[in-house]
């Protein structure tokens, strides 16, 4: 019974916590500019994420290690330090983008500019981290994030051409604007295959005291939760294609994105969008702050747990306190969170090999996983993910320049 509950809650939180500012921004931009043509990128990104999340959970349930401490233990501190610099830099930018997403949601609701929200929003995130437990952070914001199911309702109400949408699940090339198309494909993949989820999920499995008996639970949660999450992202793209394209609108700003559901759901669409972004960005900000604190604490061998009181966890709490404080600075200076989001997508793509390659070695190490190490299917998927990551890293930055 406990495991059925764990599966249900896990799936619900995966669905509610899947979307965040990066996935919504890229899906909406893609739908507005290219209709259904980039649905394949979400499908591919989601498939990669399903495998990576399943592996993260399996790794921790079997080895009772997190990915971070095993990386340091297996490869030594100098290599770990390189991974840490790259990954933490990207996580920090993602945190800035998520805090900015909350600020932008409040801006469209109140008319008060997002820089004014930087300090109160950062304080709320820090306070929840300080007072909250892992369960509250994992489940609370994600359950509120279920409001994103409204994207599916909006997409269905707009009566899409399902045949054309299915066609978009296969990769193709547009007649014009190839650079922009390529950049958006890269951004969607970067937004979907987000390494902070791997680290967060792996640490969460330890926080929740998973053991080998949780392997089937982990598989259900990773597969169903991430798949349903991918469907939400696709729904945002479909709704954008049917809302913005007929009006000739190419989405560049958050204010434009806010009109996503005003046609399909005239009465509540605007407020549902604002609430969706508010809750999902809050959830993602909490997860990212935790992922950074986990990274430092596990990497340096400090005590760590979101369930411990700050007095027993001083260095862990100090890290997220400083990181949240620093993340508020660019927003206070008025730096556009959407630009930070797009830049963090490209940097995520650039650092994916750094995060995924050592993970592949760990997933094949009999010392950690014994009989539960990767089979050829998992290895192939991870190898393809690394290849995709590498190609993404090579093309993301020039495409960002070409695509404007």
């Amino acid at each position, binding site marked *: 019974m406990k495991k059925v509950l764990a599966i249900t809650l896990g799936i619900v939180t995966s669905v509610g916590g899947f979307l965040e500012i990066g996935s919504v921004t890229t899906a909406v931009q893609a739908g507005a500019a290219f209709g259904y043509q980039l649905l394949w990128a979400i499908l591919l990104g989601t498939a990669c994420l399903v495998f990576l999340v399943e592996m993260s959970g399996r790794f921790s349930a079997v080895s009772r290690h997190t990915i971070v401490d095993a990386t340091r233990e297996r490869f030594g501190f100098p290599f770990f330090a390189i991974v840490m610099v790259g990954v933490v830099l990207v996580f920090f930018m993602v945190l800035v983008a998520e805090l900015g997403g909350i600020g932008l949601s409040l801006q469209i609701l109140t008319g008060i500019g997002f820089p004014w929200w930087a300090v109160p929003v950062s304080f709320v995130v820090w306070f929840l981290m300080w007072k909250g437990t892992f369960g509250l952070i994992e489940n609370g914001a994600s359950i509120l994030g279920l409001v994103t199911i409204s994207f599916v309702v909006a997409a269905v109400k707009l009566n899409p051409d399902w045949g054309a949408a299915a066609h978009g699940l296969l990769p193709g090339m547009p007649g*014009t604007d190839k650079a922009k198309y390529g950049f958006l494909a890269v951004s969607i993949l970067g937004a979907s295959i987000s390494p902070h989820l791997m680290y967060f999920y792996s640490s969460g499995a330890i926080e929740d005291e998973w053991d080998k008996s949780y392997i089937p639970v982990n598989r259900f949660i990773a597969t169903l939760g991430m798949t349903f999450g991918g469907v939400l992202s696709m729904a945002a793209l479909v709704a954008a294609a049917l809302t913005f394209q007929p009006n000739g609108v190419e989405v560049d700003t958050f*204010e434009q994105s*806010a009109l996503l559901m005003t046609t399909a759901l005239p009465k509540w669409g605007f407020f549902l969008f604002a609430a969706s972004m508010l809750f999902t960005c809050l959830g993602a900000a909490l997860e990212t702050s935790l992922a950074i604190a986990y990274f430092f604490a596990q990497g340096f061998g400090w005590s760590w747990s979101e369930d411990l009181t700050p007095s027993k966890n001083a260095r862990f709490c100090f890290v997220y306190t400083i990181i949240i404080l620093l993340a508020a600075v660019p927003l206070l200076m008025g730096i556009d969170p959407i630009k930070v989001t797009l830049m963090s997508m490209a940097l995520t793509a650039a650092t994916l090999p750094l995060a995924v390659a050592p993970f592949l070695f760990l997933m094949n190490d009999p010392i950690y996983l014994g009989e539960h190490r990767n089979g050829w299917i998992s290895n192939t998927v991870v190898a393809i993910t690394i290849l995709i990551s590498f190609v993404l890293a090579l093309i993301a930055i020039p495409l960002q*320049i070409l695509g404007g």
Partner: protein
Amino acid sequence: MWIKRLLGLSLIFATACKPPTPAEQMESALSWIGTAGMAGKAWLRHTTPDTYTRQTLELSHDKLGQLADELLKSPPPGADSESLNSVLARSRKRIARLEALITAKNVRGFARELDALRADQRLVKRMSDRMEPNE
């Protein structure tokens, strides 16, 4: 060796960086008129707050102004630049008027101005379609 490679890569990125073409600027202008139209339509249905609608109209007005300046400096090939400037200036005025009509809560006047903006959008679209294709 690595410095040379880095310099080479920087050069590739620098040459890849290009300003938007007039055709792309026309698309952006159409997009911002469309944004103002969508925001206006949503406000008429009483589904968006006044402040948000005013801010979005102001943003559209400013972006359209920047694009009109750029298009004035380098007009799109095959377009009647005088007519284009005139219709973009008119659209900006209409968007500014829409903002004022929200403050005045003049729904009927707002609806009339929004219809006129849509007519301008169709005109800009026709001009854009007549232009030489985007490279």
